[in-house]
């Protein structure tokens, strides 16, 4: 669960400005959430309360939407967010094994972030690089045609380049 974090004043203002930009229309909730998340990387409770207030909708509705869509998150991502493609093409070329290996190496589950905040792990469905299957993305970089034995080396490299 998200920790109680007090947002800085300017973040509050920014979130309010986003709501104003969309005319404080309840129908714009998802657009507002997208922009608010891009501000901060995630959507803490306080931010959702501001949005609920501005758009005149119950905060339970905002929270209901945030928890419905997998794109929205209430926990900060790691510095290097890892996504394992579990699209069918990657699956039949062995992406499940990559996922297992990443989980093992980093000792985290899907949706979690390593204690040092360096890596977070997620799955996604098809990055569209099926020619490179199986594919893992770390940050913006796409790693293709991987085998489980490549994982440790790649993660070590990414961590070392910090």
């Amino acid at each position, binding site marked *: *669960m*998200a920790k109680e974090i007090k947002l800085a004043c300017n973040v509050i203002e920014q979130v309010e400005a986003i709501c104003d930009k969309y005319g404080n229309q309840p129908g714009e909730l998802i657009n507002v959430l997208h922009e608010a998340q891009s501000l901060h990387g995630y959507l803490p*409770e306080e931010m*959702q*309360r501001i949005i609920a207030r501005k758009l005149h*909708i*119950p*905060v*339970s*509705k*905002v*929270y*209901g939407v945030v*928890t*419905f869509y*997998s794109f929205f998150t209430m926990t900060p991502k790691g510095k290097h967010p890892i996504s394992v493609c579990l699209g069918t093409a990657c699956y039949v070329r062995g992406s499940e094994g990559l996922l297992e290996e990443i989980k093992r190496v980093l000792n985290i589950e899907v949706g979690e972030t390593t204690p040092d905040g360096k890596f977070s792990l997620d799955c996604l469905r098809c990055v569209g690089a099926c020619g490179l299957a199986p594919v893992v993305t770390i940050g913006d970089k796409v790693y293709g045609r991987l085998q489980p034995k490549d994982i440790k080396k790649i993660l070590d490299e990414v961590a070392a380049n910090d």
Partner: protein
Amino acid sequence: MITLTIDRHVVVVPANTTILEAAKTVSVEIPTLCHIDLEGTCVKSNPASCRLCVVEVEGRGNLMPACATQCRQGMVVHTSSPRVLRARKTVAELILSDHPNDCLTCSKCSDCELQRLVRRLNCRVMPYNDGEHSLRKNEVTDAIVRDMNKCIYCRRCESVCNEVQSVGALGAVGRGFTTTIAPAFGKMLGETNCTYCGQCVAVCPVGALTERDYAEELIRDITSPDKIVIAQTAPAVRYALGEEFGLKPGASVTGKMVTALKDMGFDYVFDTDFGADMTIMEEGAEILDRLKKFLAGDKNVKLPIMTSCCPAWVNFFEHEYPDLREYPSTAKSPAQMFGAVAKTYWADKMGIPRDKLVVVSVMPCLAKKYECSRDEFKVNGNPDVDYSITTRELAALIRRSNINFDSLPDSDYDKPLGESTGAAAIFGTTGGVMEAALRTVYEEYMGKQLPRIEFDQVRGLEGFREATIDLDGFELKVCVVHTLSNARMVMDKLRAGELNYHVVEVMACPGGCIGGAGQPYHHGDSSVLRARQRAAYAEDAGKHLRKSHENPDIQKLYAEFLGKPLGEKAHHLLHTHYFDKTIH
């Protein structure tokens, strides 16, 4: 008109009729679970999501939900073909596979719609029960208990909380198998803007949402030799309690109820109706006071004055409209007025020390449970009303006390807090408080007897009703709303300066207390509410005294103890103040 065939029946129905409705007209009862339509009120939820009402429509590949499929000309519907029965049973088995199935000890046992349905579908095995259960959060508040592992996700509660009550404390959270209905951020209801109206409990088909049960506390106190335990029963309880014992809705069981309470060991049994008459004395005086100031040109007077008997409504405006909290009357609810008087006037008379006296209210209401816990209704931590039990809890206690309710003789309420008028009798229905107040306000203002005692203009079940009363040239404009979404509409107008009434009555539950969340479950049948409403007016009509200010024991109370309405003592004991409880 549309003609279709349902099983062996040829049915003729108007356009826009669902298969479910059409089937009812030929006595074909298709089972439903998520669907609820309390006709005549705005309580309606039809997500078509449980899929138990599926039927076979010739020419359609898939089975169709009867609750949401409209009849078409020439349609041929099979409601119990082998294919339908197999599918329906499988869906029920799936629901059971994610349900605790602890029916024997569930508080909803024998009143559970799922249980009834499973029996009806003849489910004898649970083929999917070795699977995972969706684990959800549980919570116990002063008024409501949420055991969300029992939730079957019909979403009736979400629908009433959002659409009917416009509160939005509950909402759907998450996605897929683990979806649940809960407050935001995993918070407890007590941390939200929940008003404890309890309508979520009233519509929950299973045991996921129930009332907080105070039976153990009550039995402890009744059996304790050094406690004097007294009961007060709300107006709407007496014509609903019988339903729990197989009587028809609207059957009045006042005398039996009093006997039962005495048999259970209550030392005295009084009537909240007495408190209701007191409320009219105070609220009526307040109405007159504000009207006089208004007519005298006072620009600061807060009009409309709004009723304040309904504790869920009070919670609602404290949360959502604290800026307007000077509009509602400061009069406490009848139950709290009763408690305050019982623990002072009556206790003094009887020589019972406050800490030995236990006041129990029997209410059609869940918010009353929360109301008891308000600090402003306590003296040195000792509440004016110790706790509140619902009509349903009372029925359970009667059964537990080995009392055969049907064969009980009638008894009268104890005096002096048991005397009441017809005005108090109608407090339990929407429009009742307004009518009771008008009877007194009219006579006080005009200084003469009402030509006709009934104010039919304010009666009914519509969510919003208005009337103009001619007070000798002065047009008194009143309106009556029930459900909190209608209250919100009124408050938004008030905030915008567009509300042109002098008096407004608000009740949170559909139909008022007759549809209260503590009443026997209506299971979506609005005829139950209508019968209770008729009973309230019949009770009033049958009373010798029908105006609160004519209640002799009330007159005596003021003469002996309180002084004048709105006087210092009355103000201290019978009035309250409101808080800004905005959730930030």
